[in-house]
């Protein structure tokens, strides 16, 4: 029988994913890509919840339910964000954050 993957490995993956997402959000200038980076961060949290639920607290399903809600809300957030980005494109003719710098300091 194969040895089970320890929890720490999964936590390492999810933490790495979270910070890759954060790095992407800080370095990318395209709004859609920045949105994708945020989705990456949310997904890493999902992995956390599922892993904790499966390994540490298998008797109740709190973590799994939370994951379902995060996925739903992330979809709602993305819908509103993309609508805002489309409107930004109409007014600025670009979806680069560097072009939307009318207000500063």
């Amino acid at each position, binding site marked *: 029988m194969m040895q089970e993957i320890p929890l720490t490995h999964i936590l390492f993956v999810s933490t790495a994913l*979270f910070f890759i*997402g954060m790095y992407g*959000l800080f370095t990318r200038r395209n*709004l859609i890509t*920045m*949105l994708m980076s*945020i989705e990456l*961060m*949310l997904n*890493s*949290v999902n992995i*956390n*919840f599922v892993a*904790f639920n499966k390994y*540490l*607290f298998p008797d109740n399903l*709190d*973590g799994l*339910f*939370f994951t379902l*809600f*995060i996925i739903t*809300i992330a979809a*709602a*957030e993305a819908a*509103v*964000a993309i*609508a*805002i*980005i489309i*409107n*930004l494109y*109409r*007014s*600025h003719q670009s979806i680069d*954050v560097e072009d*939307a710098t*009318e*207000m*500063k*300091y």
Partner: protein
Amino acid sequence: MNYTILLHLRQELLLAALIFLLLFIKLGKDRSNESILNFINLALLVNLVAGFCCHETGELFNGMFNTNTIIVFEKNLLNLAVLLISMQSYAWLKTNNNVIEFYLLTLTSLLGMFFMISSGNLLMFYLGLEMSTIPLAAAANFDLTKRKSSEAAMKLILSSAFSSAILLLGISFLYGTTGTLSFSIITAHLNGNPLQLFAFILLVTGFAFKISAVPFHLWTADVYEGSPVAVTSFLSVISKAAVLFTLVNILYKVFTPLASSWYLILMVLTAATILIGNLFALRQDNFKRFLAFSSIAQVGFILIGISSSSQAGMASLIYFVLIYIFSNLAAFGVVSVVSALTGKENISDFKGFYKTNPMLSWVLTIALFSLAGVPPTAGFFGKLFLLMAGAAKGNYGIIIFAALNMVISFYYYLSVVKAIFMDENSTPIEKMTVPVVSKIAMYICVVGVIVTGLVSMVYDYIHSISFGL
């Protein structure tokens, strides 16, 4: 049949009914903006009055939803603020094509805040938080053709999504170390191990983003400047107040075992928030940006009150929020009317304002005096109670620091008053006819600013229903 669910959820159900009613009005035949606005203002008034009846304590859905006297009172405060904002933005909404959509977005956000304040579970809290922020991002973009508006909405949605990702990471670690999402059970499992502390810091970061405490304040000024004035006042008063209420609930009820750690975190946030808020407010010319930084500085004072972790701390927080609703909305009310009728939003445009619009000048002046904390107005008593509650902890350094910062804040608040009353201007804002509804809202604010400070009953009542650590 069991009616407790109706009784406990009555404020939420009423608001949800109002939202659905508005949807049906939207579907129905075309009505004039005036009739819609009058109807909505009346409905919001009914909503506010209905909130004051029957105070119940209890919980629903296995403790996911709590209600008690103080939570009902907090929701009533938010209802009051929404009514005032709705009345003040009458002039702006009258000419707008999408009146109902504006109310759908803001009321949905208010519903989310109600659930957030009542939450007894991290899942419920997260749902409420998102339900209150996502519609606001759409509302920030309400001036669809304005470049600044879409920029503001973009900044709001990206920073709030980022902050909720950080908050969620904190929640997931909290779940990993305690094995539950329910507030009442989490407390028993908190032992202060490093992962829990890390999770807690992430959670506080998420909160600090929403209340725009320094160093998480960078979105605030831009979003406030770009959004329509009504949305800005909603963001600066209601959304902030709701998150502060939730924060104090969670800190006092759930994270009691970590009290010494969060005291230090709050101290650092307070010092940075007061100082940076004040220093940046000095150099602003746009009125909304100016009020954004002033509201950041006010949050710093509120955090001092929270840090006291006593009954007086919570009472002074809620009392200050009540005063802040009146004084900030009086200021935003004047800015809103001027912006809707003339399109001017800069402080330099307000030079010589007193010569043409004496009534509005006095409202604005009293509001600014209250925000600064000049004695006869309520703002003074609010700040006094916050600092006294903080001083009970014995950390006098931060109190003296805050008091010194009040001196800086006098400079910038009073320089606006000087511009209104003393400065000459060849092209002042011409005489305006303010809609009656907006006028009533401003008078309510001014009376509130003066009366809540002088009538000690208000503070005594709030003190009697609040709780400490």
